[in-house]
């Protein structure tokens, strides 16, 4: 069928960009591989131990996050109450909440001098312990973030169950367990392998949470070990070997995940569920799951805000270094979000104009570079590449951080913009062609007004990822070039907890404002234009 508008310029631009991104990634990998051949220098890294620890941590995170995500999605799908949309929106924000902020919040709640232990000392006269450090702390932080992410994806699947299927089930008087087994489970099951793979990768490549809560070498992961090897031990060969191990494992997981369905983009379809309530016991269980999950997710974030505002807010705000770091974070965040938008739009517009499966795959592949080459590894590659080119790392740092952050946000940006652009091309392709609209007319009159909210969401995702990034800046940051997360990390290392609390609160506020505000702002701008 010739129903897709004929857009050779879009496709050519998209192919050029995809090849350029692929070329950049290959150059980065080549720099890493070239450094790995330097076998004369001895290395002390214990790869089997690190691989074992990282896999155990990521595996347990995946299992717990999927379990929590399914329970929470099931509860949210059934319950109707005032403020439900706010709660769902809150869990949606998990994907952009900086890991550092959650880790800091956990320390504030469960740490040695945290809320729980202080309360225990006051009531029982002794502390309850310190589960925020070590493997338990890492798992807790990961499950808070990834469980909420899983819940949001799975809730979209449950909400998309056709009303007719629910009507049939209701008329057959299915029990709660029958309903779950026959209707809910089949809807969620297809997403679980892909979702599990993504959560495994997110946990496998997690950096700030392990750095803050790891509590020593016993719980160190590959990503943190790479950072330690470069910045603390100056063991470049060790870092390169770790990076290759990391890339190898990630590539295997991606290959396995690629066989399953796409889970990042939520399916279309609203919450059209007819009113079909479960029994009293099931409803009590759903309320319990919802209450525990909300408290588990909100409490650490609330503690960050309270500690920040009551702690070092005033002290931090008068420091020139804070405003310097704040400005740097804003500029880096805005620039990488803008770059991500340009890259994602160019790739998605070309992809939506292509009908061939091979071409669509080619245009989709480079955007997933991040999943194969995680933040610290990508930074290491850029670091080596810049050194090989004879450039000064401190001069190239701002550009590298912007480009690296854009590449890291690209898979999520493509997953946000790609499906609606594909849908427009397929649903309206005949009309657009028959009217003979130019590519610019198609974008300006049809695509842009309809994409307003998606563009805002994509910009918010990219901005928030960049705002909370520690993996890239950790390798390139200097005293003169630091962002808020790096400043917070340094404040923690210098035992300036109040300063760290204030910065964490500012990061959280910035993230919430961007995530809530940008989609609305762009929807309004696009509609005003349309």
């Amino acid at each position, binding site marked *: *069928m*010739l*129903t897709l*508008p*004929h857009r050779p310029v879009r496709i050519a631009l998209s192919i050029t960009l995809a090849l350029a991104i692929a070329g950049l990634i290959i150059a980065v990998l080549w720099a890493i591989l070239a450094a790995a051949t330097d076998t004369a220098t001895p290395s002390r890294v214990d790869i089997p131990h690190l691989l074992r620890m990282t896999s155990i941590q990521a595996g347990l995170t995946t299992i717990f996050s999927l379990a929590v995500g399914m329970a929470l999605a099931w509860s949210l799908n059934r319950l109707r109450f005032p403020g439900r949309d706010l709660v769902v929106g809150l869990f949606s924000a998990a994907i952009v909440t900086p890991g550092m902020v959650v880790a800091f919040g956990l320390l504030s709640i469960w740490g040695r001098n945290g809320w729980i232990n202080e309360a225990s000392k006051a009531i029982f006269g002794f502390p309850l312990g310190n589960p925020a450090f070590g493997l338990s702390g890492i798992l807790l932080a990961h499950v808070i973030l990834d469980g909420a992410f899983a819940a949001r994806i799975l809730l979209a699947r449950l909400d998309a169950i056709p009303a007719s299927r629910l009507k049939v089930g209701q008329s057959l008087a299915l029990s709660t367990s029958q309903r779950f087994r026959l209707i809910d489970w089949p809807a969620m099951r297809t997403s679980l392998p892909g979702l599990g793979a993504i959560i495994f990768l997110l946990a496998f490549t997690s950096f700030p949470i392990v750095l803050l809560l790891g509590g020593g070498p016993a719980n160190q992961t590959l990503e943190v070990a790479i950072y330690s090897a470069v910045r603390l031990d100056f063991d470049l060969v060790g870092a390169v070997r770790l990076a290759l191990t990391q890339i190898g494992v990630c590539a295997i997981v991606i290959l396995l995940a690629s066989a399953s369905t796409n889970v990042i983009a939520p399916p279309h379809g609203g919450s059209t569920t007819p009113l079909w309530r479960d029994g009293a016991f099931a409803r009590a269980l759903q309320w319990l799951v919802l209450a525990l999950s909300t408290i588990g997710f909100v409490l650490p974030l609330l503690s960050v805000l309270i500690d920040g505002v009551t702690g070092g807010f005033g002290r931090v705000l008068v420091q020139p270094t804070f405003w310097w770091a704040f400005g740097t974070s804003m500029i880096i965040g805005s620039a990488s979000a803008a770059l991500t938008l340009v890259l994602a739009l160019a790739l998605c517009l070309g992809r939506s104009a292509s009908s061939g499966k091979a071409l669509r795959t080619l245009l989709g592949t480079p955007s997933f570079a991040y999943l194969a080459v995680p933040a610290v590894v990508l930074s290491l590659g850029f670091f080596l590449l810049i050194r090989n080119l004879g450039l000064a790392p401190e001069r190239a740092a701002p550009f590298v951080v912007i480009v690296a952050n854009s590449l890291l946000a690209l898979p999520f940006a493509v997953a946000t913009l790609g499906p609606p652009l594909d849908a427009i091309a397929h*649903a*309206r392709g*005949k*009309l657009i*062609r*028959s*009217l*003979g*609209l*130019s590519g610019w*007319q198609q974008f300006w*009159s*049809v695509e842009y*007004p*309809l994409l307003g909210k998606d563009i805002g969401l994509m910009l918010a995702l990219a901005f928030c990822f960049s705002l909370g990034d520690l993996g890239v800046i950790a390798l390139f940051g200097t005293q003169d070039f630091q962002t808020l997360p790096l400043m917070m990390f340094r404040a923690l290392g210098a035992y300036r907890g109040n300063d760290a609390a204030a910065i964490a609160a500012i990061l959280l506020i910035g993230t919430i404002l961007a995530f809530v505000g940008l989609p609305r702002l762009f929807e309004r701008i696009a*509609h005003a234009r*349309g």
Partner: protein
Amino acid sequence: MLEAEHLVFAHPGQSTSYDFSFTAEPGEVTAISGPSGSGKSTLFDLVAGFLKPESGTLALDGQNLIHMLPETRPVSLLLQADNLFDHLSAEDNVALGLSRGTHKAEARRRIADVLRQMGLSALAHQRAATLSGGQKQRVALARTLLRDRPVLLLDEPFSALDDDTRRSIRTLVRDLTVRQCWHTILVSHHADDIAALASRRYQLKDGVLASA
């Protein structure tokens, strides 16, 4: 005159093969009817250019259209629904019918003119999503009028309308066809629409058109 001669087409993986021949005169409505699955949509897509025939010719006043892309064919479409972009105003939807490079003042004048002709001036700034089914079809016809392509393809354009609106839109189509000398082709299985509009009729059966 629009003339199709042995437009042969088969969908990949399907055994049915189509062989279409018909003629349509300017200023007349030519109706093509047939049961569901008989190939009406295939014929529609072949004339609009969304499908390429394996062989045959489709010519307008002697000019072969077969190798022309859908966007360059002298054809306008009016479908049962989704003719408009819901997020745009009636005026902006109509404006899409203007040829590129039309001067702004000229564009404004022509848009206002067709909207007035179609009785839509009061709705010019209203979003398409808020218009009724009949108003939407009127806006789509206003755009068609602005484009003024010699062939108008109608695919069940009255199906979603109530009886009164249906009658008024049918009258509008017939009047415009005569006034603009369009070669209007109506693809439909509604006998009353065909009876009210068509000067020439074809029946689709077993993948072949026959005069009715």
